[in-house]
């Protein structure tokens, strides 16, 4: 009997979790389209789906900052980067695909082309890993999105969210090294070694900058961090913001630190052997990483979802402001490509192990002093 009781209880809990009331109790409220939502909730099946999607954790996972926004941002930022670079370089950039919108779906067209191209797995590759890693890498790329709060919308609320997000982001290079190892080619090998060197070089200043902000805010919960920022974090600890920005540039291998993937030197390094849709997947990794790190930067230093409230948007306020800030940061990162040349590996390593490390130590000191000043010795 006990077993059946436990079973019934479990089913009951499950039903409760899956019930529409459970979703509607924690729903994203948007006054602007509330009548439409109210109407849709009355429709039998559609109502359930709408309630599920607008349930805050699911909204965070699916819409913002999750899947749909990620894809939109990928589409947009690649187009924007090409358009901006073209503008600086006295060119036009992509125009032919969807002419009236200035070629904005060029990345989508390229993706479709990749999709229908042959995926060549060369003889020397470690076949399972070669094909698995570009897909597995989406785990560390997508997971941190669950912990990033957009106003009141957050996938998983935990006091360790910042630490978890940073830890998962740090896993991405491990997968890239795996990709390079599975490729088993000379240029991939060199690129992988470079990736490994860069990984250690930027990760420590990066984590020090994050720790200094955790000390400054006195918490690692990103929801609280956003709430505490009546003054954006960049004014509280500009040194940490600088370190975070530079390490973001390094981590996403953007110029001037595009060292592991230097196409003129080692032909895209770890990704040299990929073709077809696999190439499409590995080439978006850097952009996805850039998106996550920009989100983290917006949360840590620019007040996350804070901003002037627009009553009509309701819960979407945080979403809109975080989105705007993230896109602005990504635009600045895109701009770097057209003004800098690439550093050499040894120069980048020297820079990050000496100068950047010193600066991150300063930021850590600021964090400790602020921690003592705000929360006293007892905290």
């Amino acid at each position, binding site marked *: 009997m006990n077993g059946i009781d436990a079973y019934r209880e479990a089913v009951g809990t499950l039903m409760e979790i899956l019930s529409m009331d459970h979703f509607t109790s924690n729903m994203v409220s948007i006054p602007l389209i509330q009548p439409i939502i109210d109407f849709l909730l009355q429709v039998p099946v559609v109502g359930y789906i709408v309630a599920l999607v607008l349930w805050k954790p699911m909204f965070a996972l699916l819409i913002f900052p999750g899947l749909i926004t990620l894809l939109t941002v990928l589409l947009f930022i690649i187009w924007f980067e090409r358009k901006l670079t073209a503008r600086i370089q006295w060119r036009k950039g992509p125009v032919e695909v969807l002419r009236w919108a200035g070629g904005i779906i060029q990345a989508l067209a390229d993706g479709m082309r990749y999709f229908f191209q042959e995926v060549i797995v060369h003889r020397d590759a470690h076949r399972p890993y070669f094909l698995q890693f570009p897909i597995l890498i989406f785990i560390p790329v997508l997971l941190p999105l669950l912990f990033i709060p957009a106003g009141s919308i957050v996938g998983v609320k935990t006091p360790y969210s910042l630490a978890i997000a940073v830890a998962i982001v740090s896993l991405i290079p491990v997968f890239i090294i795996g990709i390079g190892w599975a490729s088993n080619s000379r240029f991939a090998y060199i690129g992988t070694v470079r990736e490994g060197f860069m990984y250690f070089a930027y990760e420590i200043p990066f984590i020090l900058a994050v720790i200094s902000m955790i000390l400054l805010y006195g918490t690692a919960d990103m929801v609280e961090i956003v709430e505490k920022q009546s003054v954006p974090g960049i004014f509280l600890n500009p040194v940490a913001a600088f370190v975070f920005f530079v390490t973001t540039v390094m981590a996403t291998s953007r110029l001037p630190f595009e060292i592991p993937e230097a196409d003129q030197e080692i032909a895209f390094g770890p990704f040299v052997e990929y073709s077809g849709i696999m190439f499409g997947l590995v080439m978006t990794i850097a952009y996805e990483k850039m998106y996550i790190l920009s989100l983290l930067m917006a949360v840590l230093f620019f007040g996350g979802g804070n901003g002037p409230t627009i009553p009509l948007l309701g819960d979407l306020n945080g979403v809109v402001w975080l989105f705007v800030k993230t896109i602005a940061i990504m635009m600045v990162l895109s701009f770097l*490509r057209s003004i800098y*040349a690439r550093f050499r590996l040894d120069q980048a390593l020297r820079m990050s192990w000496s100068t950047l490390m010193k600066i991150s130590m300063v930021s850590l000191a600021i964090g400790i002093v602020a921690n003592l000043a705000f929360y006293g010795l007892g905290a």
Partner: protein
Amino acid sequence: MEEMVLDVPVQPPTELFLPVPKRFLEEAYRSDDYLVLVGPQHPGSGHMRIVLRIKGDVIVEAIPDPGYVHRSMEKLAENRLYIQNIPLFERPAIMDTGNVTLGYVRAIEKALDVEVPERAKYIRTILAELSRIGTHLYDAGILAVFLGHTTGFMWPFALREPIVEAMTKISGARITSSFVIPGGVRRDVPWSVLEFVRKTTFVLEKRLKSFEKIFIKNPTVIDRLKGVGILSREDAIKFGVVGPFLRASGVEYDVRVVEPYEAYDEVNWEVPVSDDGDSYSRFLVRVEEIAQSISIVRQAVNELRRIPEGRVISEDILHEYASVASTDIRGYFFKVFGDLTLPKGEFTSLTEASRGTLLYSLLSDGESNVPYRARVITPGWYYLKGFMEALRGERLADLQGIYGSFGYFPPEADR
């Protein structure tokens, strides 16, 4: 779907072809060095292969494997009329058309002992210097993209456009003009076009300032190029480096000064020299040469104002057509040059092309209207050894920086 089996009697090669001696391979393997074959299908190699032996990140040895764009120009030249060889010899470095054709034509003129009209001399000088600016800009663009600086790649290519436009107005062709012919130039250049050329130089000067800001003085570029790929003065002479790269190592040698041809001894200009011998000074010498070329072009245009319009082809070569064809060869081209025959002997000319000394040597048997033997040594071939020596001891990532600073152009070197 059923798999189709093709019964082809050809077996694919089982052993890999390696362009290096087997001994070298084994040695590299034993000493735990890493062998990297850069090219010929590599975004940063051009039409050639460079076999690198790497210890850690440092290049121990670099072996070039050129010849992928060899077109046997010297042999082809033996079966063509002297005049037909002008467009042929233009092909190795088409953006440098003014200089490469000039060298060949001067060898013919030397053989026939032709005195070129003064106006033609100045027009040739303008063409040569415009080509020089164009080539220097082209190589600056390649250097920039090798360093990952795409803006530095696009801007010089856009900057070449006014030069190409000026060439079009002078000769009718954007790049391969073949405008220089034995005895002068194809036709006179009207005053309006010369004025356009003069204005072009001002446009270039203005735009080059913005290029300087974004690329030449860019801190990342300086970091990448300074102190990299150093060729000392002695090494540069020993390895036979030529042109701006020799001057960047502190040797003040320029054919235009040592054996002045055309109007170079009548205009004022300086030979830019640097003592550092590294990649950055090689680049800076070429940048400075652009400024000197602009100055030469302006002076030449001003001089042309003084010389009356008209005669641009020498009577020595036109003979009975001198009265009708001396301002414009059109209509008389084949009549004049069809059976051009050189006296018996060997005739050599040295020219300062954009990338360095260019040698043409024509061997004539004195009776046929084609050369018995034509020898072309392009600057790229001269400085290939120096380029490889400069790589030694540098880091792998610097291969492209040094490559770009030399502006090595395989089609030119391979001929």
